[in-house]
């Protein structure tokens, strides 16, 4: 009996710490993403409050500056009733945000945590992550259509316009990083960065374009056009209540998180440097990756406090004129660096 | 390993569905969608032949086909939008009454 329990415990532990389960469920996946969600939304409110000389979240857990506010909000979302209005298309109204949420999580599965710890170590893992990211906008369109509401429909159309314009700079700037390190495999890219130096120093242009695209595509502030609160309530999720609204609010943050992880891997050296206490187990270098991604997330969230919002035509002009040109220039820049390397 | 013929079978069934759709619908958008199904079936057949014969040129043909399909859809959809703006209707049987 004791042996059996011991055996089950051992295999269970092995199963939990195998990358195929640990990565989607625990570390860069669900649990880490949810805890980041709770911290980041609190941080966003607090930063905006400090800059505007207010208190911000304050009443729940007063001694820790209201850090538990988001936990309270989450509980409230969980237990409040899900009201499904009469005029909506019921199946799409309920299913679409849930499928959207699941699809926003998918790119995280491809992103490696360290050299020996990746759920999917594929030759083209960078491309797989990008391909899974492009599915986001179509599900958001379905969400906005199903609500049968003027505001959510306008929000969905805005997101559609934006997505048609940001996808090309996103892919080209990621490809210029791939050209620079001569590989589509994210693990190899980080290994090359450990030998050569971070990507942001080699090709700052691509890094800037990718950062702007992150802010652009997850509707953070200067480009917060699809969810503009002062114009169209909250965009595609206007009609939602309860836990479905909670999902909708979380989706753009999860997307921000997965894109920031990709940014940290491509331009900020991933999990390097691996110093002493971190090389004990292959999961531990992921902490550095997480910290780098968190800095990007915190930066994009901080922009809410300092920028006004662009109009949609201004944002589209920026995407097609400036970002598109800069992305192409960054690709040429990468090829130039490769040529110099070959010549010298 | 899956028998390569199964892919071709699926592709032909898909082609039949697309042909049925394009024959039985009169709405322009629906005909466009059926044509896209035909394209998908052709692409599947092309890919399975490429994979079966391991011919590298098939790769480039598929890339070309997908890229051209993207452009073609842009043209067709904008045609449909123009037609809709002009007539408020996208019935194909009415298109031959267009003048000017």
């Amino acid at each position: 009996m004791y042996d059996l329990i011991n055996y089950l415990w051992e295999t269970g532990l092995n199963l939990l710490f195998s990358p195929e389960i640990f990565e989607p469920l625990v570390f860069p996946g669900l649990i880490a993403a949810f805890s980041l969600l709770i911290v980041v939304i609190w941080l966003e409110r607090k930063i905006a409050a400090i800059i505007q000389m207010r208190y911000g979240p304050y009443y729940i857990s007063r001694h820790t500056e209201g850090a538990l506010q988001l936990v309270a909000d989450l509980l409230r979302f969980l237990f409040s009733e899900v009201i499904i209005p009469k005029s909506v298309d019921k199946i799409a109204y309920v299913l679409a945000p849930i499928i959207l949420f699941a699809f926003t999580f998918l790119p995280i599965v491809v992103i490696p945590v360290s050299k020996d710890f990746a759920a999917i170590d594929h030759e083209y893992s960078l491309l797989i992550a990008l391909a899974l990211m492009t599915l986001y906008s179509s599900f958001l369109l379905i969400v906005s259509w199903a609500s049968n509401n003027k505001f959510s429909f306008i929000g969905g159309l805005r997101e559609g316009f934006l997505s048609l314009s940001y996808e090309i700079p996103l892919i080209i700037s990621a490809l210029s990083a791939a050209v620079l390190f001569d590989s589509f495999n994210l693990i190899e890219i980080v290994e090359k960065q450990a030998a050569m130096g971070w990507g942001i120093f080699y090709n700052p242009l691509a890094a800037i374009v990718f950062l702007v695209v992150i802010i652009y595509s997850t509707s953070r502030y200067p480009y917060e056009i699809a969810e503009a609160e002062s114009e169209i309530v909250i965009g595609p999720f206007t009609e939602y209540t309860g836990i479905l609204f909670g999902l909708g609010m979380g989706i753009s943050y999860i997307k921000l998180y997965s894109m920031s992880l990709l940014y940290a891997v491509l331009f900020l050296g991933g999990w390097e440097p691996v110093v002493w206490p971190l090389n004990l187990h292959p999961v531990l270098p992921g902490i550095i990756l997480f910290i780098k991604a968190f800095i990007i997330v915190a930066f994009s969230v901080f922009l809410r406090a300092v920028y006004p919002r662009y109009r949609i035509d201004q944002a589209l002009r920026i995407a097609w004129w400036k970002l598109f040109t800069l992305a192409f220039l960054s690709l040429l820049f990468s090829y130039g660096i490769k040529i110099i390397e070959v010549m010298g | 390993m899956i028998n390569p013929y199964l892919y071709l079978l699926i592709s032909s069934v898909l082609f039949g569905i697309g042909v049925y759709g394009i024959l039985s619908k009169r709405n322009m958008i629906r005909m466009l969608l059926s044509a896209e199904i035909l394209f998908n079936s052709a692409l599947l057949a092309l890919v399975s032949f490429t994979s079966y014969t391991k011919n590298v040129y098939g790769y480039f043909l598929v890339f070309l086909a997908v890229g051209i399909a993207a452009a073609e859809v842009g043209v067709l959809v904008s045609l449909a939008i123009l037609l809709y703006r002009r007539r408020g209707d996208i019935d194909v049987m009415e298109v031959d009454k267009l003048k000017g």
Partner: protein
Amino acid sequence: MIEFNFLIPIEDTIFLFSAALLLISAVLVIELRSHVYAAFFLEMVGLANAVLFALQGLALIAIFQLVVYVGATVTFILFSVLMFKEAKPVKPRFKLLDLLIGAGIAGLLAVGAFSIYKVSPTAGKPSLDVTLPEKIVSEYGLALFLVFFTLLTTLIEALVLARREVSS
């Protein structure tokens, strides 16, 4: 690293799932009344097709299909369809005849493909990533399974929610 031995042949399961998704959503594209749903199921057709490409060992083509066809082209169609009013349903002309023509063409193609497939066992140069999907499926099958499982549980959750609303 532990080895996982599946009782179910996972490659065949993925093949069956994606083939069923492909054919069912193709029928739905044609038969559903709402244009928006039809465009959405066209997207599912593209997605299932990409999975079939990946199963045949052409991962790069599958990714390309996902980015260019599903991510851009069909999203563009969906985006445009959203702007049309829902058209009134039009009665088809000769439904049975059309069905017969479709089935006949499908049968002809299947027979033709079978004869070609029997004739040509020519093997050219081995392409680069033919063995990759087997590797994915054998080594990382569990991750794929988990993803499918998560999607399935969310679907069941959603169905429960929807049913509760209908009954009240």
